[in-house]
């Protein structure tokens, strides 16, 4: 039975247009995976000697155990954003002679072998082995390795519970940030020394192999909780169905001043507000705005002004990047309508441009309070905004013409992890790193002002060539029209 499911998934994977069109992207992802494996492997091999050298008077094993608290916290946080419950299109399976529990067991079982659970092994095993080579007693170290593997699974299933509980709310990121944040702060201010408790618990647990049954039992309980949650959602009127919502209408007539693009602008605003997926990207903006608070007060970054550019691009561009990446997939559900209606492509794309550029401006205005951390911060934010409006908008619009992945806006959040994941974040990297480079060179070679001037000049240049660029981008979209229609017609 499991092999049947696996075969289904494999087919779903390789037969999707997305895969066929983006082999290059997949290869890129494989390289990223290899990179992480190497990093973790390096950490596993190098950890012991490094700790020995830096803290000669302390026991490296102890240090690592005390650090485990942060390791698991970070693991949980990363998983929340990157790892999604292995999706299987369950609806067609419901009426087949399959036990529901089977379907759920398969979905959960598959998560056991996720990349996220393998990655830590590359650190855990080499580190454990170096411990043994360095004369640590064999059996506790082996227990320790096992314990960490089990711990990874605990985090794995804990994450799914948090995800499924928070997915149905709009502020889906709030619970996880609250949990992680409060645990971290409790520990940081020594209110409850969780890292010590955990390290003591680890020491006790590895002293006897039988004690490992305790964490295994925890995995069992978490698995069971997940099982109960999922099986409850396997009804058409539960997790698999979208609820009828009461209409919330607002007056959007102020957009009329944007002329021909106004019609689409209104459509986009409604799309953003009325669908769960895009709405969450609106909430990301709020978190993004606060991102500067992690950076600017920190004295370490005081001397690293180029990093401020990164923050500036991020703060003023977070909406633009989040939204822009999925142009025109946001409209994939009714793309055929748009293509046969009385519409010029130019107006359609122009409205997307206006929305992105407008968001950068609004976010810049909202970020003005950061002037508290020095006038340079706000100058950088301004330059970043100009760069975002002039360059990044066009880059994203152009990149959109390669978009072949449909987004189903109507799907409920519980089973809907479409289009999100590692790729989404990876695409953003060049958008943020390039301006960093454009600033850094003149900044290093000449001075701060020249760096700023370079960014602003590039932005203005993009703005001046807006018409030309749009013409070029529009042409590209028209060229790929049939492929796009075909791809958006498919379910995966």
């Amino acid at each position: 039975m499991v092999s049947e499911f696996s075969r289904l998934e494999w087919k779903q994977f390789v037969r999707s247009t997305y895969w066929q069109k983006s082999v290059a992207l997949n290869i890129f992802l494989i390289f990223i995976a290899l990179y992480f494996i190497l990093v973790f492997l390096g950490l596993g091999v190098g950890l012991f000697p490094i700790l020995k050298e830096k803290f000669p008077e302390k026991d490296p094993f102890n240090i690592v155990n005390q650090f485990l608290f942060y390791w698991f916290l970070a693991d949980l946080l990363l998983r929340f954003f990157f790892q999604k419950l292995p999706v299987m299109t369950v609806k067609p399976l419901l009426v087949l002679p399959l036990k529901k529990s089977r379907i759920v067991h398969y979905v959960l079982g598959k998560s056991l072998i996720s990349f996220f659970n393998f990655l830590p092994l590359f650190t855990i095993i080499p580190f454990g082995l170096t411990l043994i080579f360095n004369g640590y007693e064999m059996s506790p170290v082996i227990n320790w390795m096992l314990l960490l593997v089990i711990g990874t699974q605990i985090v794995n299933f804990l994450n799914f519970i948090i995800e499924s509980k928070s997915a149905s709310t709009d502020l889906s990121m709030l619970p996880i940030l609250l949990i992680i944040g409060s645990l971290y702060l409790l520990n940081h201010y020594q209110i409850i020394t969780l890292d010590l408790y955990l390290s003591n618990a680890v020491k006790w647990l590895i002293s006897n192999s039988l004690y490992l049954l305790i964490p295994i039992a925890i995995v069992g309980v978490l698995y069971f909780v997940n099982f109960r949650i999922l099986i409850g959602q396997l009804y058409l009127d539960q997790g698999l169905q979208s609820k009828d919502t009461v209409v919330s209408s607002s007056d959007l007539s102020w957009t009329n001043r944007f002329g021909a693009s106004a019609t689409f602008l209104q459509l986009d605003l409604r799309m953003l507000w009325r669908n769960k997926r895009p709405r969450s990207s609106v909430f990301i903006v709020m978190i993004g705005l606060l991102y500067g608070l992690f950076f600017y007060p920190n004295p370490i970054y005081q001397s690293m002004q180029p990093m401020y550019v990164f923050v500036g691009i991020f703060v003023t561009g977070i909406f633009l990047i989040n939204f822009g990446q999925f142009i025109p997939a946001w409209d994939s559900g009714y793309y055929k309508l748009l293509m046969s209606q009385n519409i010029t492509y130019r107006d359609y794309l122009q409205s997307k441009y206006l929305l992105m550029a407008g968001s950068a401006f609004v976010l810049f205005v909202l970020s003005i309070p950061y002037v508290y951390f020095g006038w340079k911060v706000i100058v950088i934010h301004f330059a970043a905004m100009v760069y975002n409006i002039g360059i990044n908008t066009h880059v994203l619009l152009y990149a959109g013409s390669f978009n072949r992945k449909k987004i189903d806006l109507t799907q409920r959040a519980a089973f809907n992890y479409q289009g999100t994941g590692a790729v989404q974040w990876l695409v953003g990297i060049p958008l943020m790193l390039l301006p960093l480079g454009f600033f850094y060179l003149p900044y290093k070679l000449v001075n701060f002002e020249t760096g700023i001037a370079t960014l602003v000049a590039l932005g203005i240049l993009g703005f001046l060539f807006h018409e030309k660029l749009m013409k070029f981008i529009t042409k590209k979209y028209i060229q790929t029209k049939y492929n796009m229609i075909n791809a958006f017609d498919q379910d995966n």
Partner: protein
Amino acid sequence: MINATDLTKKYGKKTVLDIPSLEIPKGQTFGLVGNNGAGKTTFFNLVLDLIQPTTGNILNNEIQVDKSEDWKPFTSAFIDESFLIGYLTPEEYFDFIARLRGVNQVDLVAFLDQFKELFNDEILGQKKYLRDLSKGNQKKAGIVAALIGHPEVVILDEPFANLDPTTQIRLKKTLKQINDNSKSTLLISSHDLGHITEVCERIVVLNKGEVIKDLKTSDQTLKELEQFFAT
């Protein structure tokens, strides 16, 4: 109005549509029938330039559809649910289409008023999004939206499917009225031979991508069609 010449569509080696020549004059109500896979939707998609022809071309009012976009202002269609925007209310959707077609608010309200009977109080003023309407009501909204702005060419794929009997009868009435009152060219496909012979002046039967019959509708047409499909 619509002229297809040497039109073929192939997927790999399989020919799904092969029409050497087909001419649909202005103002005609044109019906397309055929079993599944006969090529009806393919033909409509080609007229709307949603797929590319393998050979040949289609002229819509002398404009080659895959070369220029100038046919869009006077052409509209409702093929399937993907022509609806799920997160809009029917009112907003009609408004959206009306704006694209350059129809003002007042005219739109007057236009929608004609369809009161067809809507049966289930479309307008419901405070529901299109995606939450039943399949039948979605279809009604889509068909009416396709008629906004009196386009010269209207393409409806299977307009009668999913509709309740009352609505089917009302829709037939509406379509006949359109044909009587305006010079619109209507392209309709259907599996319901009764409905289509009642509405259309001319019926073309497609089979495996080829035109098998081209009939001017008369009292005998329904019988002839039934006989054809029975064998």
